[in-house]
């Protein structure tokens, strides 16, 4: 795995990020929600390593803790997308015919909306909150993951080991779970790793629009949205969450590309 340059860089970027996010709650950080109006827009100093925001809150604490929400968002939405998309894609590719037609046409309906807009629409129905935002993005991912899995299943389905399984009378469930799934797992892994990065991006975008993570708890997207009005006062305010967010997404993208090379997967760019 470490022989691949992309995977190596990806892991190198993600390792520290994930470590920080896991360790942050137990670190002796300042209270991320404690305001200090007198000390707003402070530049980095010994006391506030990353400076402070418009309420004088410590940016170091907020940035480190904000990653939890974003990562949770990426992982959660991807998990939902996989949970729904993988079975749909497998069934569609394996059974073909009317099952395939029905499932894929239904998926096409959801592909007629841009990702962010569909998420917005789902949130409009359920109301803006973290849980629903994750669910919404998971649903947005579902048809895209289903298509990838279906594509790989279609090419695997014609391999004769599937026919061999049918010839000895295996059930459809056995063939799907024990014969097909292990052979389409590579594209699923690659897609998942890229989706996590993308989920983090959409999640922060929703927070940016005020529909994801709710204040006052820190989140990178929400922090960037807040910083927008105060850019001229302090560039640090946007720099930190923007930097951390970009590094995380870059890490997942590079890891995904590396995995694609390692696992020898061909996926069309979306």
């Amino acid at each position: 795995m470490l022989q691949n340059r992309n995977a190596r860089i990806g892991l190198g970027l993600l390792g520290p990020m994930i470590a920080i996010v896991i360790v942050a709650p137990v670190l002796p950080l300042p209270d991320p929600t404690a305001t200090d109006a007198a000390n707003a827009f402070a530049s980095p100093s010994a006391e506030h390593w990353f400076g402070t925001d418009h309420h004088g809150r410590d940016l170091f604490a907020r940035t480190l803790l904000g990653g939890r929400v974003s990562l949770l968002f990426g992982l959660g939405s991807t998990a939902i997308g996989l949970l729904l998309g993988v079975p749909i894609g497998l069934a569609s590719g394996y059974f073909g015919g009317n099952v395939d037609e029905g499932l894929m046409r239904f998926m096409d309906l959801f592909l007629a909306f841009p990702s962010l807009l569909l998420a917005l629409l789902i949130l409009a129905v359920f109301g803006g909150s973290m849980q629903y935002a994750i669910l919404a993005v998971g649903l947005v991912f579902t048809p895209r993951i289903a298509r990838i899995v279906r594509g790989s299943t279609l090419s695997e389905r014609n391999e004769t080991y599937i026919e061999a399984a049918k010839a000895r009378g295996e059930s459809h469930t056995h063939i799907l779970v024990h014969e097909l799934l292990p052979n389409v797992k590579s594209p699923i892994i690659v897609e998942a790793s890229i989706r996590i990065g993308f989920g983090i991006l959409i999640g922060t975008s929703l927070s940016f629009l005020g529909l994801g993570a709710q204040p006052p708890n820190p989140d990178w997207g929400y922090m960037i949205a807040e910083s927008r009005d105060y850019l001229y006062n302090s560039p640090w305010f946007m720099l930190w969450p923007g930097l951390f967010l970009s590094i995380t997404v870059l890490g997942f993208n590079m890891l995904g590309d590396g995995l694609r090379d390692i696992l020898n997967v061909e996926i069309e760019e979306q």
Partner: protein
Amino acid sequence: MGKFGRYLAIRSLYSILILWGVTLVVFGVTQILPGDPATMVLGPYVSEQGIELVNERLGLNKPLPVQYFDWITGIFVGDWGLSFQYEQPVYDIVVPRMLRTAQLALVAFLLVVCIGVPLGVVAAIYRGSYVDTVVSAVTYVWLAVPGYVFGILFILLLGGPVFYLFPSSGYVAPSESISGWFGHILLPSVTLALMMVAHVLRQTRSELIDTLQSEYVRTARLKGLDERTVLVKHALRNGIIPTVTLLALKLGSLLGGTVLIEYVFSYPGIGTLTVEAIHNRDLPVLQMSILLIAAAYVIANLIADVLYTYLDPRIEYGGA
């Protein structure tokens, strides 16, 4: 009917079916949106009679199928209903917004085509060289930094205290001032283009690399053709087909409103209108704006598929 004609007919029919499905989804979603429209229109303190009066005027007391039917037939005759919030015809609100987004989209699209495709070709030809490495590294970063961060950075650097080159928000119609129009549209479209250039570039590069390694390119080289002919005549023609399809899809998503970028630059397009309509529960506006965005998407998908089939002589004309 020729094979291609048949394919076109089936594929178009299918797109229409999808759009019909979209109208059902949009109508359904707006029905279950929380909140009472009449309350939206009149504010929280209204009498029973007031609510009934509004429902009567907006046609909200009719059965759902009738409301749906009225809505659909209205779309075709240009009667798109009244905005709850502005009390103006939806048509007059949505269409100008859509047109402004289209302007933004077209400028961004031109930038993507003029930057992404040539860079991708260069990166593929000089694969492994430092040009390729730099281009690859830059596209990685582009793909990872959210568009709105780029937008904010542009505003910070070029639209404000550092260099005041371009206005950072709003829109000026070209009929008023061409330079004003261009000034307002440039930053958001460059931001949009940046995000897409990375995708288009990577796709162009990887497809062209595959083509350059194909056996028919080997045949061409072993015929003694010079490298320029091999590239232009034998490789580019086939290698570029997937990119053309991708570009069609990208145009669709650009037209589909680029919510975030419009939001960052306070650009009065269809994207910001949709977010506004969601926040304000302005159902008629929301329905139509979403429908238009989805239509742009579906049509772009149609164009992409048809182009691919048309450009690649190998494709069997399957069903939809």
